[in-house]
Protein backbone atom coordinates (compact mmCIF):
# COMPACT_ATOMS: atom_id res chain seq x y z
CA UNK A 1 0.00 0.00 0.00
CA UNK A 2 2.79 2.39 0.98
CA UNK A 3 4.60 1.32 -2.17
CA UNK A 4 1.67 2.22 -4.37
CA UNK A 5 1.20 5.54 -2.57
CA UNK A 6 4.88 6.31 -3.07
CA UNK A 7 4.66 5.46 -6.74
CA UNK A 8 1.60 7.63 -7.25
CA UNK A 9 3.09 10.64 -5.53
CA UNK A 10 6.57 10.15 -6.97
CA UNK A 11 7.77 13.31 -8.65
CA UNK A 12 5.11 15.52 -7.08
CA UNK A 13 6.22 18.37 -4.90
CA UNK A 14 5.04 18.47 -1.30
CA UNK A 15 3.02 21.52 -2.19
CA UNK A 16 1.19 19.67 -4.96
CA UNK A 17 0.33 16.75 -2.69
CA UNK A 18 -1.05 19.13 -0.06
CA UNK A 19 -3.18 20.87 -2.69
CA UNK A 20 -4.48 17.59 -4.01
CA UNK A 21 -5.38 16.29 -0.56
CA UNK A 22 -7.11 19.58 0.24
CA UNK A 23 -9.07 19.49 -3.01
CA UNK A 24 -10.08 15.88 -2.52
CA UNK A 25 -11.22 16.59 1.05
CA UNK A 26 -13.33 19.51 -0.19
CA UNK A 27 -14.95 17.31 -2.82
CA UNK A 28 -15.62 14.56 -0.28
CA UNK A 29 -17.46 16.85 2.15
CA UNK A 30 -19.17 18.91 -0.56
CA UNK A 31 -22.55 17.03 -0.54
CA UNK A 32 -23.02 17.86 3.16
CA UNK A 33 -22.64 21.55 2.50
CA UNK A 34 -24.43 21.92 -0.81
CA UNK A 35 -28.05 21.55 -1.85
CA UNK A 36 -29.26 18.91 -4.29
CA UNK A 37 -29.09 21.26 -7.26
CA UNK A 38 -25.43 22.08 -6.67
CA UNK A 39 -24.63 18.42 -6.08
CA UNK A 40 -26.17 17.70 -9.48
CA UNK A 41 -23.98 20.39 -11.03
CA UNK A 42 -20.94 18.78 -9.39
CA UNK A 43 -21.98 15.41 -10.80
CA UNK A 44 -22.11 16.92 -14.27
CA UNK A 45 -18.67 18.49 -13.74
CA UNK A 46 -17.11 15.22 -12.61
CA UNK A 47 -18.85 13.37 -15.42
CA UNK A 48 -17.28 15.73 -17.97
CA UNK A 49 -13.94 15.60 -16.17
CA UNK A 50 -13.96 11.81 -16.46
CA UNK A 51 -15.00 11.86 -20.13
CA UNK A 52 -12.37 14.50 -20.88
CA UNK A 53 -9.72 12.43 -19.14
CA UNK A 54 -10.64 9.40 -21.24
CA UNK A 55 -10.63 11.41 -24.49
CA UNK A 56 -7.34 13.01 -23.52
CA UNK A 57 -5.61 9.60 -23.62
CA UNK A 58 -6.22 9.52 -27.35
CA UNK A 59 -5.71 13.16 -28.28
CA UNK A 60 -3.57 14.59 -25.51
CA UNK A 61 -1.23 11.65 -25.13
CA UNK A 62 -1.20 9.84 -28.47
CA UNK A 63 -2.16 12.79 -30.69
CA UNK A 64 -5.17 11.17 -32.38
CA UNK A 65 -8.10 13.58 -32.67
CA UNK A 66 -11.43 11.85 -32.04
CA UNK A 67 -14.64 13.80 -32.54
CA UNK A 68 -16.80 10.72 -32.15
CA UNK A 69 -16.38 9.68 -28.53
CA UNK A 70 -20.16 9.71 -28.11
CA UNK A 71 -19.99 6.33 -29.87
CA UNK A 72 -18.19 4.66 -26.97
CA UNK A 73 -20.32 6.35 -24.32
CA UNK A 74 -23.50 5.41 -26.20
CA UNK A 75 -22.43 1.80 -26.59
CA UNK A 76 -21.64 1.62 -22.88
CA UNK A 77 -24.99 3.12 -21.93
CA UNK A 78 -27.03 0.91 -24.20
CA UNK A 79 -25.23 -2.31 -23.29
CA UNK A 80 -25.59 -1.72 -19.56
CA UNK A 81 -29.21 -0.55 -19.91
CA UNK A 82 -30.29 -3.50 -22.06
CA UNK A 83 -28.59 -5.99 -19.74
CA UNK A 84 -30.34 -4.35 -16.78
CA UNK A 85 -33.85 -3.94 -18.19
CA UNK A 86 -34.01 -7.27 -20.02
CA UNK A 87 -31.90 -9.60 -17.90
CA UNK A 88 -31.67 -7.89 -14.55
CA UNK A 89 -27.87 -7.69 -14.77
CA UNK A 90 -26.49 -4.82 -12.71
CA UNK A 91 -24.55 -1.83 -14.10
CA UNK A 92 -21.15 -2.89 -12.83
CA UNK A 93 -21.31 -6.19 -14.65
CA UNK A 94 -22.84 -4.25 -17.52
CA UNK A 95 -19.76 -2.01 -17.52
CA UNK A 96 -17.53 -5.08 -17.67
CA UNK A 97 -19.48 -6.15 -20.76
CA UNK A 98 -19.45 -2.65 -22.26
CA UNK A 99 -15.69 -2.12 -21.96
CA UNK A 100 -14.62 -4.81 -24.44
CA UNK A 101 -17.38 -3.83 -26.87
CA UNK A 102 -16.35 -0.17 -26.82
CA UNK A 103 -12.68 -1.18 -27.11
CA UNK A 104 -13.56 -3.37 -30.10
CA UNK A 105 -15.43 -0.49 -31.75
CA UNK A 106 -12.36 1.69 -31.18
CA UNK A 107 -10.15 -1.06 -32.58
CA UNK A 108 -12.20 -1.26 -35.78
CA UNK A 109 -11.98 2.50 -36.35
CA UNK A 110 -8.32 2.53 -35.39
CA UNK A 111 -7.48 -0.39 -37.63
CA UNK A 112 -9.18 1.16 -40.65
CA UNK A 113 -7.57 4.54 -40.06
CA UNK A 114 -4.06 3.55 -39.03
CA UNK A 115 -3.71 0.73 -41.54
CA UNK A 116 -4.73 2.90 -44.46
CA UNK A 117 -3.00 6.07 -43.40
CA UNK A 118 -6.06 8.12 -42.48
CA UNK A 119 -4.66 10.88 -40.28
CA UNK A 120 -5.41 14.32 -38.86
CA UNK A 121 -8.74 15.84 -39.81
CA UNK A 122 -9.61 12.86 -41.99
CA UNK A 123 -9.25 10.62 -38.99
CA UNK A 124 -11.49 12.98 -37.00
CA UNK A 125 -14.12 12.82 -39.74
CA UNK A 126 -13.95 9.02 -39.69
CA UNK A 127 -14.66 9.02 -35.95
CA UNK A 128 -17.65 11.32 -36.49
CA UNK A 129 -18.91 9.02 -39.24
CA UNK A 130 -18.88 5.97 -36.98
CA UNK A 131 -20.74 7.78 -34.22
CA UNK A 132 -23.30 8.86 -36.81
CA UNK A 133 -23.64 5.27 -38.10
CA UNK A 134 -24.37 4.20 -34.56
CA UNK A 135 -26.91 7.00 -34.06
CA UNK A 136 -28.80 6.07 -37.22
CA UNK A 137 -28.42 2.33 -36.61
CA UNK A 138 -29.70 2.47 -33.03
CA UNK A 139 -32.59 4.63 -34.22
CA UNK A 140 -33.83 1.52 -36.02
CA UNK A 141 -32.72 -1.19 -33.63
CA UNK A 142 -35.75 -2.90 -32.08
CA UNK A 143 -33.89 -4.46 -29.15
CA UNK A 144 -33.11 -0.99 -27.79
CA UNK A 145 -36.56 0.38 -28.58
CA UNK A 146 -35.22 2.28 -31.58
CA UNK A 147 -36.03 6.01 -31.71
CA UNK A 148 -38.66 5.66 -28.99
CA UNK A 149 -35.88 5.39 -26.44
CA UNK A 150 -34.98 3.03 -23.64
CA UNK A 151 -36.20 3.72 -20.11
CA UNK A 152 -34.88 2.32 -16.88
CA UNK A 153 -37.32 1.71 -14.04
CA UNK A 154 -36.97 4.57 -11.57
CA UNK A 155 -36.06 3.42 -8.09
CA UNK A 156 -38.81 3.29 -5.52
CA UNK A 157 -36.69 1.92 -2.69
CA UNK A 158 -35.96 4.18 0.26
CA UNK A 159 -32.27 3.32 0.49
CA UNK A 160 -29.33 3.65 -1.88
CA UNK A 161 -28.43 0.53 -3.80
CA UNK A 162 -24.85 0.96 -4.92
CA UNK A 163 -24.70 -2.41 -6.63
CA UNK A 164 -27.67 -1.57 -8.87
CA UNK A 165 -26.94 2.18 -8.99
CA UNK A 166 -30.38 3.15 -7.74
CA UNK A 167 -30.41 5.99 -5.28
CA UNK A 168 -30.20 9.72 -4.61
CA UNK A 169 -27.84 12.24 -6.23
CA UNK A 170 -25.39 12.01 -3.33
CA UNK A 171 -24.72 8.36 -4.11
CA UNK A 172 -24.22 9.15 -7.81
CA UNK A 173 -21.93 11.98 -6.81
CA UNK A 174 -19.64 9.70 -4.83
CA UNK A 175 -19.63 7.11 -7.60
CA UNK A 176 -18.55 9.73 -10.13
CA UNK A 177 -16.00 11.22 -7.75
CA UNK A 178 -14.43 7.80 -7.23
CA UNK A 179 -14.47 7.12 -10.98
CA UNK A 180 -12.83 10.47 -11.75
CA UNK A 181 -10.15 9.78 -9.17
CA UNK A 182 -9.51 6.32 -10.63
CA UNK A 183 -9.27 7.80 -14.15
CA UNK A 184 -6.81 10.45 -12.95
CA UNK A 185 -4.61 7.88 -11.22
CA UNK A 186 -4.80 5.54 -14.20
CA UNK A 187 -3.75 8.32 -16.57
CA UNK A 188 -0.90 9.28 -14.29
CA UNK A 189 0.35 5.72 -14.18
CA UNK A 190 0.06 5.44 -17.96
CA UNK A 191 1.89 8.72 -18.49
CA UNK A 192 4.76 7.65 -16.30
CA UNK A 193 5.17 4.28 -17.92
CA UNK A 194 6.70 3.08 -21.17
CA UNK A 195 3.40 3.28 -23.03
CA UNK A 196 2.95 6.94 -22.05
CA UNK A 197 6.38 7.93 -23.35
CA UNK A 198 5.73 6.09 -26.59
CA UNK A 199 2.38 7.86 -27.01
CA UNK A 200 3.99 11.26 -26.52
CA UNK A 201 6.65 10.39 -29.07
CA UNK A 202 3.96 9.41 -31.58
CA UNK A 203 2.04 12.61 -30.86
CA UNK A 204 5.14 14.72 -31.41
CA UNK A 205 6.47 13.09 -34.60
CA UNK A 206 5.33 9.72 -35.81
CA UNK A 207 8.19 9.15 -38.27
CA UNK A 208 10.76 9.99 -35.62
CA UNK A 209 8.94 7.68 -33.20
CA UNK A 210 9.20 4.85 -35.71
CA UNK A 211 12.88 5.63 -36.17
CA UNK A 212 13.53 4.92 -32.47
CA UNK A 213 11.85 1.55 -32.83
CA UNK A 214 8.30 2.26 -31.66
CA UNK A 215 5.70 0.10 -33.45
CA UNK A 216 3.39 3.09 -33.87
CA UNK A 217 0.41 1.18 -35.27
CA UNK A 218 0.20 -1.01 -32.19
CA UNK A 219 0.61 1.85 -29.72
CA UNK A 220 -2.02 3.96 -31.45
CA UNK A 221 -4.36 0.98 -31.26
CA UNK A 222 -3.72 0.73 -27.51
CA UNK A 223 -4.57 4.40 -27.12
CA UNK A 224 -7.89 4.12 -28.96
CA UNK A 225 -8.91 0.95 -27.16
CA UNK A 226 -8.05 2.15 -23.66
CA UNK A 227 -9.70 5.52 -24.31
CA UNK A 228 -12.84 3.85 -25.71
CA UNK A 229 -13.10 1.33 -22.87
CA UNK A 230 -12.80 4.08 -20.28
CA UNK A 231 -15.31 6.29 -22.08
CA UNK A 232 -17.91 3.51 -22.04
CA UNK A 233 -18.24 4.10 -18.29
CA UNK A 234 -19.64 7.58 -18.89
CA UNK A 235 -22.46 5.98 -20.88
CA UNK A 236 -23.22 3.45 -18.14
CA UNK A 237 -23.36 6.27 -15.64
CA UNK A 238 -25.51 8.41 -17.91
CA UNK A 239 -28.02 5.58 -18.41
CA UNK A 240 -28.45 4.93 -14.69
CA UNK A 241 -28.39 8.56 -13.65
CA UNK A 242 -30.89 9.89 -16.19
CA UNK A 243 -32.80 6.59 -16.57
CA UNK A 244 -33.39 7.13 -20.27
CA UNK A 245 -31.46 6.73 -23.50
CA UNK A 246 -32.29 8.08 -26.94
CA UNK A 247 -29.98 7.41 -29.90
CA UNK A 248 -30.63 10.97 -31.02
CA UNK A 249 -29.11 12.22 -27.75
CA UNK A 250 -26.40 9.84 -26.66
CA UNK A 251 -24.77 9.36 -30.06
CA UNK A 252 -25.17 13.00 -31.02
CA UNK A 253 -22.07 14.87 -32.07
CA UNK A 254 -22.88 17.51 -29.46
CA UNK A 255 -22.08 14.84 -26.82
CA UNK A 256 -18.69 14.26 -28.41
CA UNK A 257 -18.02 17.99 -28.52
CA UNK A 258 -19.07 18.48 -24.91
CA UNK A 259 -16.61 15.79 -23.83
CA UNK A 260 -13.64 17.51 -25.47
CA UNK A 261 -14.34 21.11 -24.42
CA UNK A 262 -13.06 20.47 -20.88
CA UNK A 263 -9.63 19.20 -21.89
CA UNK A 264 -9.27 21.86 -24.60
CA UNK A 265 -10.07 24.66 -22.17
CA UNK A 266 -8.09 23.07 -19.34
CA UNK A 267 -5.09 21.87 -21.35
CA UNK A 268 -4.80 19.04 -23.86
CA UNK A 269 -2.25 16.43 -22.88
CA UNK A 270 -2.10 17.42 -19.23
CA UNK A 271 -3.39 15.29 -16.38
CA UNK A 272 -5.22 18.06 -14.56
CA UNK A 273 -6.46 20.02 -17.57
CA UNK A 274 -9.59 17.94 -18.22
CA UNK A 275 -10.66 18.27 -14.58
CA UNK A 276 -9.95 22.01 -14.36
CA UNK A 277 -11.62 22.59 -17.72
CA UNK A 278 -14.78 20.78 -16.64
CA UNK A 279 -14.95 22.84 -13.44
CA UNK A 280 -14.39 26.15 -15.17
CA UNK A 281 -16.73 25.56 -18.10
CA UNK A 282 -19.63 23.93 -16.31
CA UNK A 283 -19.22 26.11 -13.26
CA UNK A 284 -19.36 29.30 -15.30
CA UNK A 285 -22.16 28.04 -17.54
CA UNK A 286 -24.32 27.13 -14.55
CA UNK A 287 -23.59 30.49 -12.90
CA UNK A 288 -24.64 32.18 -16.12
CA UNK A 289 -27.87 30.20 -16.16
CA UNK A 290 -28.55 31.04 -12.53
CA UNK A 291 -27.85 34.72 -13.17
CA UNK A 292 -30.12 34.80 -16.21
CA UNK A 293 -32.88 33.13 -14.24
CA UNK A 294 -32.41 35.56 -11.35
CA UNK A 295 -32.82 38.48 -13.73
CA UNK A 296 -35.86 36.81 -15.20
CA UNK A 297 -34.26 36.46 -18.64
CA UNK A 298 -35.03 33.52 -20.85
CA UNK A 299 -32.37 33.20 -23.53
CA UNK A 300 -32.39 29.81 -25.24
CA UNK A 301 -28.92 28.88 -26.50
CA UNK A 302 -27.13 31.27 -24.14
CA UNK A 303 -25.10 28.35 -22.80
CA UNK A 304 -23.89 27.33 -26.27
CA UNK A 305 -22.88 30.89 -27.07
CA UNK A 306 -21.07 31.00 -23.78
CA UNK A 307 -19.13 27.81 -24.58
CA UNK A 308 -18.19 29.29 -27.93
CA UNK A 309 -16.93 32.50 -26.35
CA UNK A 310 -14.92 30.53 -23.77
CA UNK A 311 -13.34 28.44 -26.48
CA UNK A 312 -12.43 31.53 -28.51
CA UNK A 313 -10.90 33.27 -25.52
CA UNK A 314 -8.83 30.28 -24.47
CA UNK A 315 -7.67 29.35 -27.95
CA UNK A 316 -6.73 32.98 -28.56
CA UNK A 317 -5.13 33.87 -25.26
CA UNK A 318 -3.97 30.56 -23.77
CA UNK A 319 -3.34 28.11 -26.59
CA UNK A 320 -1.98 25.52 -24.14
CA UNK A 321 -5.18 25.74 -22.07
CA UNK A 322 -5.64 27.20 -18.60
CA UNK A 323 -3.78 24.57 -16.61
CA UNK A 324 -0.16 24.74 -17.90
CA UNK A 325 0.34 28.49 -17.23
CA UNK A 326 -1.53 28.19 -13.93
CA UNK A 327 0.59 25.24 -12.85
CA UNK A 328 3.78 27.12 -13.72
CA UNK A 329 2.60 30.09 -11.67
CA UNK A 330 1.88 27.91 -8.67
CA UNK A 331 5.19 26.07 -9.11
CA UNK A 332 3.51 22.70 -9.51
CA UNK A 333 4.21 22.09 -13.17
CA UNK A 334 3.72 18.65 -14.60
CA UNK A 335 6.65 17.48 -16.66
CA UNK A 336 7.41 19.43 -19.82
CA UNK A 337 4.96 17.73 -22.13
Amino acid at each position, binding site marked *: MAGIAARLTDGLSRRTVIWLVFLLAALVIAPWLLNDYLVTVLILILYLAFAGQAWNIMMGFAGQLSLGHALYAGLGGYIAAVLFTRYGIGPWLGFLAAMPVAAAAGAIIGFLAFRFGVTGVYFAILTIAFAEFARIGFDHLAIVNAAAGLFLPVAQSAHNDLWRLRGDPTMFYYVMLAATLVALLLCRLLMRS*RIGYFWL*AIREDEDAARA*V*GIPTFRYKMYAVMISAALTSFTGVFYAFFYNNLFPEQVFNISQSIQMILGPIIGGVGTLFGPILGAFVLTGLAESLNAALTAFGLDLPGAEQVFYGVCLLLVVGALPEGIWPPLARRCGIAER*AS
Partner: protein
Amino acid sequence: MTALLSLAAVSKRFRGLLAVDGVSFDVAEGTLFAVIGPNGAGKTTLFNMIAGATPPDGGTIAFAGGPIGGLSADEVCRRGIARTFQLVRPFPALSVEDNVIVGALLHRHDVGAARQHAHAVLRRLDLFDKRRQRAATLTLPDRKRLEVARALATGPRLLLLDEVMAGLRPTETDRMVATLRELNRETGVTILLIEHVMRAVMALASRVLVLDHGTVIAEGAPETVVRDPAVVRSYLGQSHHELGAG
Protein backbone atom coordinates in the same frame (compact mmCIF):
# COMPACT_ATOMS: atom_id res chain seq x y z
CA MET B 1 35.82 -10.68 -40.70
CA THR B 2 32.23 -10.52 -41.96
CA ALA B 3 30.57 -7.21 -42.56
CA LEU B 4 28.01 -5.82 -40.13
CA LEU B 5 26.12 -4.15 -42.96
CA SER B 6 26.21 -5.42 -46.49
CA LEU B 7 24.52 -3.93 -49.55
CA ALA B 8 24.42 -5.80 -52.86
CA ALA B 9 23.15 -4.20 -56.08
CA VAL B 10 20.64 -2.01 -54.22
CA SER B 11 18.46 0.18 -56.46
CA LYS B 12 15.67 2.67 -56.05
CA ARG B 13 13.66 4.36 -58.75
CA PHE B 14 11.42 7.43 -58.32
CA ARG B 15 9.18 7.58 -61.39
CA GLY B 16 11.66 8.06 -64.21
CA LEU B 17 14.65 8.84 -62.02
CA LEU B 18 17.02 6.09 -60.98
CA ALA B 19 18.03 7.59 -57.63
CA VAL B 20 20.21 4.69 -56.51
CA ASP B 21 21.57 2.36 -59.18
CA GLY B 22 23.05 -0.99 -58.18
CA VAL B 23 25.02 0.15 -55.16
CA SER B 24 27.09 -2.47 -53.33
CA PHE B 25 29.37 -2.03 -50.33
CA ASP B 26 30.23 -3.57 -46.96
CA VAL B 27 30.64 -1.85 -43.63
CA ALA B 28 32.85 -3.75 -41.20
CA GLU B 29 31.89 -3.82 -37.55
CA GLY B 30 33.43 -1.08 -35.44
CA THR B 31 34.39 1.20 -38.33
CA LEU B 32 33.53 4.78 -39.17
CA PHE B 33 32.25 4.72 -42.73
CA ALA B 34 31.41 7.88 -44.67
CA VAL B 35 29.22 8.28 -47.75
CA ILE B 36 29.93 11.48 -49.69
CA GLY B 37 28.82 12.88 -53.01
CA PRO B 38 27.20 15.93 -54.61
CA ASN B 39 23.62 16.95 -53.87
CA GLY B 40 21.15 14.61 -55.50
CA ALA B 41 23.65 11.76 -55.68
CA GLY B 42 21.24 9.46 -53.83
CA LYS B 43 22.86 9.50 -50.39
CA THR B 44 19.73 10.14 -48.38
CA THR B 45 17.71 7.67 -50.48
CA LEU B 46 20.35 5.08 -49.73
CA PHE B 47 20.07 5.89 -46.04
CA ASN B 48 16.31 5.72 -46.08
CA MET B 49 16.46 2.25 -47.59
CA ILE B 50 18.86 1.00 -44.93
CA ALA B 51 16.74 2.57 -42.17
CA GLY B 52 13.49 1.13 -43.51
CA ALA B 53 11.91 4.47 -44.38
CA THR B 54 11.59 3.44 -48.05
CA PRO B 55 11.79 -0.08 -49.48
CA PRO B 56 14.43 -0.79 -52.15
CA ASP B 57 13.25 -1.75 -55.65
CA GLY B 58 16.08 -4.21 -56.15
CA GLY B 59 19.10 -5.74 -54.48
CA THR B 60 19.62 -6.97 -50.95
CA ILE B 61 20.49 -5.27 -47.68
CA ALA B 62 21.83 -7.52 -44.94
CA PHE B 63 22.51 -6.52 -41.36
CA ALA B 64 24.29 -8.78 -38.87
CA GLY B 65 23.78 -11.70 -41.19
CA GLY B 66 20.03 -11.30 -41.81
CA PRO B 67 18.18 -9.53 -44.64
CA ILE B 68 16.56 -6.22 -43.62
CA GLY B 69 15.56 -4.81 -47.02
CA GLY B 70 11.90 -3.79 -46.96
CA LEU B 71 11.45 -4.09 -43.19
CA SER B 72 9.59 -1.24 -41.46
CA ALA B 73 11.58 1.55 -39.83
CA ASP B 74 10.66 0.48 -36.29
CA GLU B 75 11.62 -3.14 -36.99
CA VAL B 76 14.98 -2.05 -38.42
CA CYS B 77 15.62 -0.02 -35.27
CA ARG B 78 14.76 -2.97 -33.06
CA ARG B 79 17.32 -5.04 -34.98
CA GLY B 80 19.99 -2.54 -33.97
CA ILE B 81 20.16 0.31 -36.50
CA ALA B 82 19.40 3.81 -35.25
CA ARG B 83 19.30 6.91 -37.41
CA THR B 84 19.23 10.68 -37.27
CA PHE B 85 17.34 12.88 -39.71
CA GLN B 86 18.96 15.36 -42.06
CA LEU B 87 16.46 17.98 -40.94
CA VAL B 88 16.48 17.37 -37.20
CA ARG B 89 13.28 15.98 -35.77
CA PRO B 90 13.39 15.93 -31.99
CA PHE B 91 10.06 15.58 -30.14
CA PRO B 92 9.64 19.36 -29.77
CA ALA B 93 7.31 19.62 -26.76
CA LEU B 94 9.17 17.03 -24.71
CA SER B 95 12.13 17.83 -22.50
CA VAL B 96 15.60 16.91 -23.69
CA GLU B 97 15.65 14.16 -21.07
CA ASP B 98 12.29 12.72 -22.15
CA ASN B 99 13.41 12.68 -25.77
CA VAL B 100 16.30 10.44 -24.84
CA ILE B 101 14.22 8.34 -22.42
CA VAL B 102 11.93 7.43 -25.32
CA GLY B 103 14.94 5.98 -27.13
CA ALA B 104 16.21 4.24 -24.00
CA LEU B 105 12.82 2.58 -23.47
CA LEU B 106 13.20 0.54 -26.65
CA HIS B 107 15.03 -2.23 -24.83
CA ARG B 108 14.03 -1.32 -21.28
CA HIS B 109 10.60 -1.62 -19.73
CA ASP B 110 11.29 0.29 -16.55
CA VAL B 111 11.20 4.09 -16.84
CA GLY B 112 13.65 4.51 -13.96
CA ALA B 113 16.24 2.32 -15.67
CA ALA B 114 15.61 4.15 -18.95
CA ARG B 115 16.15 7.51 -17.23
CA GLN B 116 19.46 6.35 -15.79
CA HIS B 117 20.61 5.19 -19.20
CA ALA B 118 19.38 8.45 -20.74
CA HIS B 119 21.44 10.43 -18.24
CA ALA B 120 24.57 8.51 -19.18
CA VAL B 121 23.91 9.20 -22.87
CA LEU B 122 23.16 12.89 -22.19
CA ARG B 123 26.45 13.26 -20.33
CA ARG B 124 28.29 11.72 -23.25
CA LEU B 125 26.68 14.20 -25.66
CA ASP B 126 27.22 17.16 -23.29
CA LEU B 127 23.50 17.77 -22.91
CA PHE B 128 23.04 16.72 -19.29
CA ASP B 129 22.81 20.29 -17.99
CA LYS B 130 20.11 21.07 -20.51
CA ARG B 131 18.04 17.98 -19.80
CA ARG B 132 15.07 19.90 -18.38
CA GLN B 133 14.72 22.24 -21.36
CA ARG B 134 12.10 21.66 -23.99
CA ALA B 135 13.72 20.24 -27.09
CA ALA B 136 12.18 23.02 -29.19
CA THR B 137 14.16 25.65 -27.27
CA LEU B 138 17.58 24.16 -28.07
CA THR B 139 19.98 25.75 -30.54
CA LEU B 140 20.64 23.91 -33.81
CA PRO B 141 23.96 22.39 -32.70
CA ASP B 142 22.32 21.10 -29.54
CA ARG B 143 19.34 19.73 -31.46
CA LYS B 144 21.77 17.84 -33.67
CA ARG B 145 23.45 16.42 -30.59
CA LEU B 146 20.05 15.51 -29.19
CA GLU B 147 19.25 13.56 -32.35
CA VAL B 148 22.45 11.60 -31.88
CA ALA B 149 21.67 11.07 -28.19
CA ARG B 150 18.15 9.81 -28.86
CA ALA B 151 19.37 7.40 -31.53
CA LEU B 152 22.25 6.24 -29.36
CA ALA B 153 19.93 5.58 -26.42
CA THR B 154 18.25 2.78 -28.37
CA GLY B 155 21.50 0.86 -28.00
CA PRO B 156 22.28 0.38 -31.70
CA ARG B 157 25.09 -1.64 -33.23
CA LEU B 158 25.01 0.67 -36.23
CA LEU B 159 24.41 4.41 -36.06
CA LEU B 160 23.27 6.15 -39.26
CA LEU B 161 24.06 9.86 -39.17
CA ASP B 162 22.53 11.98 -41.92
CA GLU B 163 24.57 15.19 -42.20
CA VAL B 164 24.94 15.84 -38.48
CA MET B 165 27.62 18.46 -39.21
CA ALA B 166 25.57 20.49 -41.70
CA GLY B 167 24.97 24.02 -40.46
CA LEU B 168 27.51 23.74 -37.65
CA ARG B 169 30.35 26.23 -37.19
CA PRO B 170 33.88 24.82 -37.44
CA THR B 171 34.36 24.70 -33.65
CA GLU B 172 31.05 22.86 -33.25
CA THR B 173 32.02 20.50 -36.05
CA ASP B 174 35.25 19.68 -34.26
CA ARG B 175 33.31 19.08 -31.08
CA MET B 176 30.95 16.68 -32.85
CA VAL B 177 33.87 14.90 -34.50
CA ALA B 178 35.52 14.41 -31.12
CA THR B 179 32.28 13.10 -29.63
CA LEU B 180 31.68 10.62 -32.42
CA ARG B 181 35.26 9.41 -32.33
CA GLU B 182 35.13 8.86 -28.61
CA LEU B 183 31.82 7.08 -28.99
CA ASN B 184 33.19 4.74 -31.60
CA ARG B 185 36.33 4.04 -29.62
CA GLU B 186 34.66 3.49 -26.26
CA THR B 187 31.46 1.68 -27.20
CA GLY B 188 32.57 0.03 -30.41
CA VAL B 189 29.43 1.23 -32.19
CA THR B 190 29.72 1.21 -35.97
CA ILE B 191 28.96 4.58 -37.57
CA LEU B 192 27.78 5.17 -41.11
CA LEU B 193 27.59 8.85 -41.94
CA ILE B 194 26.49 10.94 -44.87
CA GLU B 195 28.51 14.09 -44.84
CA HIS B 196 29.25 17.15 -46.91
CA VAL B 197 31.78 18.67 -44.55
CA MET B 198 35.05 17.21 -45.87
CA ARG B 199 36.93 18.50 -42.84
CA ALA B 200 34.84 16.12 -40.70
CA VAL B 201 35.03 13.23 -43.14
CA MET B 202 38.81 13.40 -43.31
CA ALA B 203 39.08 13.55 -39.54
CA LEU B 204 36.64 10.77 -38.82
CA ALA B 205 36.21 8.19 -41.52
CA SER B 206 38.33 5.11 -41.88
CA ARG B 207 36.62 4.36 -45.17
CA VAL B 208 34.82 6.56 -47.71
CA LEU B 209 32.32 5.76 -50.43
CA VAL B 210 31.61 8.32 -53.14
CA LEU B 211 28.22 8.37 -54.85
CA ASP B 212 27.40 10.30 -58.01
CA HIS B 213 24.14 10.04 -59.93
CA GLY B 214 23.18 7.01 -57.88
CA THR B 215 26.28 4.95 -58.58
CA VAL B 216 29.49 4.30 -56.69
CA ILE B 217 32.39 6.10 -58.35
CA ALA B 218 35.02 5.40 -55.71
CA GLU B 219 35.55 3.60 -52.44
CA GLY B 220 38.58 3.36 -50.19
CA ALA B 221 40.65 5.06 -47.53
CA PRO B 222 39.91 8.82 -47.34
CA GLU B 223 43.40 9.92 -48.47
CA THR B 224 43.18 7.73 -51.57
CA VAL B 225 39.62 8.71 -52.45
CA VAL B 226 40.25 12.47 -52.36
CA ARG B 227 43.03 12.05 -54.95
CA ASP B 228 40.83 10.00 -57.28
CA PRO B 229 40.43 12.02 -60.51
CA ALA B 230 36.79 11.00 -60.93
CA VAL B 231 35.98 12.17 -57.41
CA VAL B 232 37.79 15.47 -57.86
CA ARG B 233 35.98 16.08 -61.14
CA SER B 234 32.46 15.26 -59.99
CA TYR B 235 32.49 16.43 -56.41
CA LEU B 236 35.54 17.84 -54.73
CA GLY B 237 36.21 20.36 -57.46
CA GLN B 238 33.34 22.37 -56.07
CA SER B 239 34.57 22.33 -52.47
CA HIS B 240 38.32 22.84 -52.59
CA HIS B 241 38.12 25.56 -50.02
CA GLU B 242 36.67 23.08 -47.53
CA LEU B 243 39.56 20.71 -48.10
CA GLY B 244 41.95 23.56 -47.63
CA ALA B 245 40.25 24.42 -44.37
CA GLY B 246 40.56 20.83 -43.18
